[in-house]
C-alpha cells in the first residue's frame, strides 16, 4: 500500500514557516473526518500527530485530534469541497498532495473551491 500525504501551509511568508501551526503534513490514513465549522470554513481532523495512540496519565491531560481549517471560496459549499477532496485523494497520481499553501509568492490550492488555509492546530505532546 502506498500512503498519500496531505500538505497544508497557512503561513504566507517563507521565513516565518518555522513553527507548529504554520504548516503541517499528515498521512491520509490519519484523516478522521470533516465538518463545517462556519459558513466559509471546512475543518479537517486528523489523529494526533504528537500523541498517536497515546495515553493521558496526569489529571486533566487530554488527547484530542489535530485539525486544519480550509477557507471556502464561496460560503456553504462544504459538500462541493468535500467531494473534490475525496476525488483528489483517489485520482492524484503523486503521493504528496498539496491541499492548500498560502505562501504569498506561490499560492497553491488543490481546487479553486478553496481560497486559503486557516488555523492549523497540532495538539501539544502530553507531558510525562
Amino acid at each position, binding site marked *: *500500500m*502506498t500512503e*498519500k500525504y496531505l500538505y497544508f501551509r497557512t503561513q504566507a511568508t517563507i521565513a516565518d514557516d518555522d513553527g507548529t501551526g504554520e504548516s503541517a503534513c499528515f498521512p*491520509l*490514513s490519519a*484523516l*478522521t*473526518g*470533516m*465538518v*463545517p*465549522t*462556519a*459558513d466559509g470554513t471546512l475543518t479537517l*481532523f*486528523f*489523529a*494526533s500527530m504528537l500523541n*498517536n*495512540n*497515546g*495515553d*493521558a*496519565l*496526569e*489529571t*486533566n*491531560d*487530554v*488527547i*484530542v*485530534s489535530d*485539525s486544519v481549517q480550509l477557507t471556502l471560496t464561496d*460560503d*456553504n459549499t*462544504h*459538500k462541493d469541497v*468535500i*467531494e473534490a477532496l*475525496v*476525488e483528489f*485523494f*483517489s*485520482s492524484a497520481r503523486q503521493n504528496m498532495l498539496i491541499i492548500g499553501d498560502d505562501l504569498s509568492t506561490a499560492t497553491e490550492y488543490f481546487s479553486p473551491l478553496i481560497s486559503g488555509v486557516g488555523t492549523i492546530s497540532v495538539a501539544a505532546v502530553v507531558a510525562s
Partner: protein
Amino acid sequence: MENQVYLYFRTQGTIGNDDDPAQSCLFPASSLAGIESSVSSGVNIVTLFFKSMRNFDGTDQAADAVTISDSVQIELKNSSTVKDFIVAFNNQLNSIASKQKRFFMVADDLSTDEQYFSTLIDGVGTITIAAAHS
C-alpha cells in the same frame, strides 16, 4: 488507505445553514464502529457510530471524562427494515470501494436536492460529533 471510502451525511435542509458540525459531516469508512437500530414515534431508525472525529484514539484524565463515538441517525421509510438498510449499505460500500471515485453520498436532506443512496431512506436524523476533550 488506498481504497478508503468516505461517507457523507447532511441533515440540514437549507444550504445557508449548513455551517456547523451538527448539520453535515464526512467520515472515512474505516472509522465505522457499528450500526444499531431503534424506533422513535413509529419510525425505524438506524444509528451509525464512528470513532470520534475530534478525539480519535484519545483519552481524558479529567474526572468523569470519557471518549465516546460520533453518530449519525438515518430515518427509514415505514416499509423499510433495518436489516434491509444494512444489506443495502454494505452492498453500496463494497461497490464504491471498487471504483475510482470513493465518495459515498449516503444521505443528503438538502431541500432543493435531496439525495439518498437507497429508496429505503426517508431522511437524516441527528448528527452528533462529540466535543473535543478539554
